[in-house]
Structures are given as C-alpha cells and as structure tokens.
C-alpha cells in the first residue's frame, strides 16, 4: 500500500497499528517491525504515531486521552484507553471480506485458516457464509489457466484440441502462448496460432487435451492489448426479433437495438461468421426476420441451412423416441 492512501484507509491504518502495538504490552514493538507490517517506512510510521500522541492533549483531564503513545529511541509502546475495539465494518467492507474469503474457501478443508476466519467474521456480522452468501469466482482459470501460465513463463508452445464455437469446428491447435486474460465471466488465452501465423484468442473452457510442448515459443508483442474483446471489423446483420427473443439484446453485444411495434426489437449485431448467424436464427426461431445482411456473410436466401441440416439428422433417426 502506497503512503498516498485515501483518508478512510489512513484513519483505519492508524487505529490498527495502535492496536497492533498495544498488543505487545509495555515492552512495545521495534519501529521497523511495525512499519513493515503496515507497508510504511519508519519516518512515515513515526509521523503517524506523533499525530496519534497529540489526541486528547488539549483535554483538561489526562485520563480522558484515548491512548498513550510512548516513542522510545528504537521502539514504541502504546496503551489504549479507548478505541480498543475494532470499529464497525460498513456493509461494503463486510461484503468484501465475506465474499473474497468465500470464493476461495469453497475448495479448502473444513478447518483451514481461511474457513476458520470466514466463520468468525460471519458470526460477528451476522451472515452464514455459504448459505446467506455464495461466491463462485474462478480466480485463475482453473487447471488450464495455471498450466498455460507455466507455459508462458517457460516460453513453451502449447497444443490443445479446440472447439471454435463461432465456426463450429473442432481442430488441434499449436499456439505460442502470450497471455491468459479474463473478459466478462470467461478466461481466454491470447497467442500466436501457428497454422495461420495470426494472433488469436481461445476460450479456456473450449480447450481439451491441453499439453505443453518442448518447442520454444516466441514472445508476444510488448504492447499486447489484453482487454480487447469482440470484433470491430466483423460484418453486421440487422434482425427484427419477436418479444420472446429479448434475451439476444441482454446476452449479446449489440451495435444498436431499436424497439418496434408489439414488443418487437430491431437489433444490429456483428456476426463472427455465417455459422454464428445461422445458429442465432435457429435459436430465435421462425418469428425472427433478417432485415439487412452484410454481403460478406453470404446470400440471405439460404440462412435456414443450419436448421435444414439439423432437421436431416432428426429425419434420418426417425421421428419417435429413440432409445440407445
């Protein structure tokens, strides 16, 4: 923590370090140890302690001072007469503690330090972790995320079987891994796809048979932009959606969404591929109408091709309950 923290943090830090020092009794604590615990230099620490020693100095009655701070040559000792209990947590603070701990505690033993801490904090603020509040926050992309990070550190090429959802193709890829990054709720690998010699992004949950190869990977560009998502140049399609396809607007990034009559919505989307668009049309159903289509996405007449292909499958296998 840098010394230029906001006021609330500085205030809580001073109270915390006073309590920390007071816990050592009259022997006190050496300056460097206390400073290190709170991320301060010794001069910064001394300045904060001097401020604290002023509190209540104007009081007529000495015993009304909240604490006594004795600054020796090499150590400080503190006696607390007041503020010896932690100040109440704000809802935002309590939430951060319980949720952060809860996210990691899921995978831990019953009496791990984190589980014990979570139970104690929960009891003080009145929530039951895991029951009242439940957090699933994959903090590192799981086993694949960790393996890929190791490969990046070691500068090794990785290979995996990948399901390209947009094109609906499964193939084995060899990639020079550059970065593992999270966007919205998903984890991605960014790297150089060896087959196409282009920068690509791969969703970790669509990889399988991930391996680190012996081949040495080239480094990524210095100015790699890990935040970029979506495809700014992808062709656009305009679709007139029925009311029950509102989820499209809520779940997909849209260029524009204009309300129409009877709850219909005219939405402009960027389509990553023709297959992507055909899939969307199969999902939204017959009530949706393609209004305008970038010619790069192919002819508009046969957009039902995916539905026909699927229908062929059902017809081939018979129209009744199929046991296997």
């Amino acid at each position: 923590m840098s010394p230029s923290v906001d006021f609330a943090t500085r205030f809580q830090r001073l109270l915390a370090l006073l309590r920390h020092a007071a816990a050592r009794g009259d022997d006190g604590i050496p300056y460097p140890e206390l400073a290190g615990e709170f991320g301060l230099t010794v001069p910064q620490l001394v300045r904060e302690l001097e401020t604290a020693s002023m509190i209540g100095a104007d009081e007529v009655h000495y015993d009304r001072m909240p604490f006594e701070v004795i600054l020796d040559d090499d150590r400080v000792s503190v006696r607390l007469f007041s503020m010896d209990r932690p100040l109440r947590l704000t809802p935002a603070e309590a939430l951060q503690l319980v949720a952060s701990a809860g996210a990691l505690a899921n995978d831990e033993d019953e009496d791990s330090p984190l589980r014990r801490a979570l139970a104690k904090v929960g009891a003080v603020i009145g929530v039951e972790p895991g029951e009242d509040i439940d957090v699933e926050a994959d903090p590192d992309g799981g086993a694949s995320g960790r393996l890929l990070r190791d490969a990046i550190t070691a500068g090794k090429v990785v290979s995996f079987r990948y399901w390209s959802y947009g094109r609906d193709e499964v193939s084995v890829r060899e990639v020079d891994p550059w970065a593992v990054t999270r966007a919205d709720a998903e984890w991605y690998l960014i790297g150089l796809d060896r087959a196409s010699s282009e920068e690509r992004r791969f969703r970790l949950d669509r990889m399988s048979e991930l391996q680190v190869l012996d081949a040495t990977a080239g480094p990524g560009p210095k100015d790699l932009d890990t935040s970029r998502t979506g495809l700014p140049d992808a062709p656009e399609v305009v679709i007139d959606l029925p009311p029950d396809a509102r989820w499209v607007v809520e779940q997909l990034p849209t260029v524009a969404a204009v309300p129409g009559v009877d709850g219909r919505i005219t939405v402009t989307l960027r389509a990553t591929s023709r297959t992507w668009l055909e899939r969307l049309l199969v999902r939204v159903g017959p009530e949706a109408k393609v209004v305008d289509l970038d010619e790069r996405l192919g002819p508009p007449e046969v957009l039902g091709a995916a539905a026909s292909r699927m229908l062929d499958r059902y017809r081939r296998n018979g129209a009744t309950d199929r046991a296997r």
Partner: protein
Amino acid sequence: MAANKLERILTLTHILLETPRHLTAVEIRSRVPGYPSEEESFRRSFERDKAELRSMGIPLDVDNVPGTDPPILGYRIPPGEGTLRDPGLAPDELDALRLAVAVIGSGDGTGQRALLKLGGGVTPDTAGGLLVSDPAIEAAFEGLAERRRLSFRYHDVDRDVDPYRLQFARNRWYLVGFDHSRGALRWFRLDRVQGEVTAGPTPGAFERPEGETPGLQLAPWLVGGDTDETVTARVWFDPDIAAYVRAGLGDVEVVGDDSDGLVVELPVTNREGFRSWVMSYLDRAEVLGPASLRDEVVDWLTEVAE
C-alpha cells in the same frame, strides 16, 4: 492539512464514543482542536466530518441534549454500536483473509480497510478486482446481514423483497429472496435493478424460512422453471465436443459417454430455455426423447428451415 484532519477526526471519534450524553456542536468545537472559529465555516467543516464518520461505518446518534430548553441538538456514537465485537482472528487466519482480499477483492481499498479494522496489516498489491461491487449489491448485503426488507424496481415492477441469499456466479451478483409483490420466491440479477436498492429501517424484519434456500438456477432448462411440468429429456452430443459439454453441464445424469457420443438426461422445467440451449449446439446435439419434446424440436426446425 491532512495531518490536521486525521487528528481532528480521531479526537472527534474519541469524544463521541466516550461521552455519557449527547454533546452539542458548541461543546464539540471547544473539545476538538482544528475547527475554524467562524460560525459558518465551522458548520461546514463539522458537516463534512459527520459525513466522513458515516462513510466509514461509524453511526452517529442525533438527539436533544437533556436539560436544554429550548432544546439543542446533540451528537454521540451510540454505545456499543460504533464498534464490532472482536472476532479474535489468529495470525494465520488474518493472513488467509489478507490473501483472499488481494486475489479476489474489488481492488478499490474497501477490503483493505475492512482488514485494518480487524487488526490485519496491509494486503499485497495485486490486480484483484474480480468481485465488482456497487451500492445496489452493498444495500442487498446490508439487508441480508441485518434481515431488513429491500425495496427496488425490477422489470418495471416495484418490489418489496426479503433477502435470503446473495450469489455471485458467472461474474454477476444475484439475489434470491421472497418477493412480496409476487408472493413468491424469486431471484434477481442485481445489475438489472432499475435505480436504487434501499434497505428498510427495521432490522430483523423477517425470519428466513427453515431449511436451505433454493440456490440460484442458471441452467437454461431450469431457469424460471415454475411454468412447465417437469419432463426428463434425453440428449445426445457429438463425441467431438463431449468434453466441453460435460464440463459446462454440472450435475446431470450421464447415460453414456463413448465414441458414439455423450448422452445425458436432464430435468426440464423450462421448455423454451431448453430448446434454445439445445439449438445452440446445431447438429452436434439431438433430443432423443421423450417423443413430445423431440416433436417440438422437429416442428420448430421445420418452421425455421422454410
């Protein structure tokens, strides 16, 4: 300037905690060093300090000072309410919390302040930022912790909700609670709340029902699943994508998983959600049964293909 403020707020907190009765503004000014002597500047400065105390979670009680006539307003921190029962965290427990806040927390200093209050030192500098937070989520949490009824607008309806459970999944916060305007248990995506979430004035306004609160359902074949009769669907998936499908399915019945493909059985309570989900796999998935569900899919595809 900053040092003065630190000294001033510390002294203010101290005298408001220790006072046996409400203190008037005049008394506060005389006991806290650093306030301007001019009346109007003092008022402004004192108002800012009160706001600072409240934002740090220190409650202020305002009431008439006993024995004053005409009555004069006085201030104090209500005994016992300004402080927390010390949870008594052991050093290894504090370290574990510190790490969790650093890895998961919002990264905006809130978790750090919480740790300082509990006696922990500083957290290591990390990216953090996984748990986004905002006032709606914090108000929902306050309602949950103190059993206060929440009011907010959702899907254009004003709701009164007893919060039972907060859940973070797929990078979003959800609230599960009893919706009095609907007379039923409902879940809400907190990022879709229109306007503010307010926690009611009364703590302990409701009892959470005995037993486990049903968890949030995100599976598309179950979401909002109180409309359709439950049917067990049997679905086949292409062996090429079986690994990815299984990873995303959670706890479902796997009937077969071999070179012929993956076959699973799912309880479907929302046919529309189920259909949309199966369709997203294109011809790499097929509804095998029951016949009624399979026929629905065939009819749907026939219409789309035309």
